């Protein structure tokens, strides 16, 4: 580590410790407890906002958080609604806040340049999995607010553990950004490797070959992702990972059959009796 980063590490360590404490306190205040009052919850929200700002400042001092307004917005949406997911008393609201988190995460993925995954998160998670959760909640919701929704297990210890883990992860991420890996450890970008492999071949022949043009990088240096992102991902998925795709399909089928088998407990239904009677 160079002296500059160690010099900046001391104040940011203090800041990090402060924001970790604020995160732990706000989580503890916000998590459902028997002794909750409106005032304590408001204090929790306030501390949560302080913690968020402190955390962003810590990341800033570690040289992490930039000024990308779009990224900060979607990341803020994801984090705040993730917090709301775990502290809301009503499970239905919890599920809806989780949908909001998914929207934020999808935005983060889009900013990162993973267009297919951003869309797939919305379609698969928010469209299918979350709706399944809501169905189950409607099927299995006792009337009124249940006491177990308003009491949580060991909120203080869990909040402290989560905040400390977050602090440790932030520290290691900060160290990662402070120390650039030496050239020998830097992985060559795959696109560059493919391009290097494609160059010696005959240019005209490579252009005719559709698979080569699919994998070859169109805009290798693009910051926000290339235009053929989905095509590249598909080529990778159905090329190198074809067997895994098949296995995933089998897994989906098995879980479908298993879910149905667990629900129907093997008792003979009325139609079965009628069939046997014939």
């Amino acid at each position: 580590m160079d002296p500059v980063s160690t010099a900046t590490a001391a104040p940011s360590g203090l800041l990090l410790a402060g924001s970790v404490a604020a995160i732990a306190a706000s989580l503890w205040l916000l998590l459902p407890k028997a002794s909750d009052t409106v005032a304590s919850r408001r204090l929790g929200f306030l501390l949560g906002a302080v913690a968020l700002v402190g955390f962003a400042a810590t990341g800033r001092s570690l040289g992490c958080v930039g000024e990308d307004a779009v990224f900060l917005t979607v990341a803020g949406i994801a984090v705040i609604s993730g917090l709301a997911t775990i502290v809301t008393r009503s499970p239905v609201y919890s599920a809806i806040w989780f949908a909001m988190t998914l929207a934020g995460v999808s935005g983060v993925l889009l900013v990162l340049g993973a267009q297919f995954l951003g869309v797939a998160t919305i379609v698969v998670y928010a469209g299918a999995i979350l709706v399944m959760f809501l169905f189950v909640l409607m099927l299995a919701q006792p009337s009124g607010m249940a006491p177990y929704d308003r009491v949580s297990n060991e909120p203080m210890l869990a909040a402290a553990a989560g905040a400390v883990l977050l602090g440790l992860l932030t520290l290691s991420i900060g160290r990662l950004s402070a120390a650039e890996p030496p050239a020998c450890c830097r992985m060559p970008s795959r696109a560059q490797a493919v391009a290097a492999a494609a160059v010696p071949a005959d240019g005209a022949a490579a252009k005719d070959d559709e698979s080569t043009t699919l994998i070859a990088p169109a805009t290798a240096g693009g910051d926000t992702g290339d235009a053929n992102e989905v095509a590249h991902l598909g080529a990778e998925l159905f090329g190198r990972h074809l067997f895994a795709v098949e296995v995933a399909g089998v897994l989906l089928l098995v879980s479908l059959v298993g879910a149905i088998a667990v629900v129907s407990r093997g008792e003979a239904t009325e139609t079965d009796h009628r069939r046997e009677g014939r």
Partner: protein
Amino acid sequence: MIPATMLTNALLVGAVLFCLGLVGILTRRNLIVMFLSAELMLQGVSVTLVAWSRYHGDWGGQVLVVFVLTVAACEAAVALVFVLQAFARTGRLDASAWQALREENLPRVIDHELPADDRVVPTWPHLSPAGVLPEGDDSRSLERDHV
């Protein structure tokens, strides 16, 4: 390819989501909320994987996230069936309802202090009539008493 600052940004977001999900799965007692917290942890991991994948220009991370999506769908289907079965047996979505399955030497969890019955009176939205006022009898109010 994304710059290193963007990588660390995304890693921080992934870490925050993961830790929130961890706290949720440790503290909440509703089985469905616990499950949602696990999905939150999966989201954090997905963000991290995509960030590394974009940083290195390698597709492996994104392919892994596709499989995470697949397995999450399977897991949700199977686990929600189990949750429904558990609810059919106990009538509760409480994880502590199954503490008969604990170790023999462990104490039983007893809720010493339950929250006071703070049954909230729902406040329905006040809908102001808009558009052309329909013909009707004046004896009935335009506002509904529930949604």
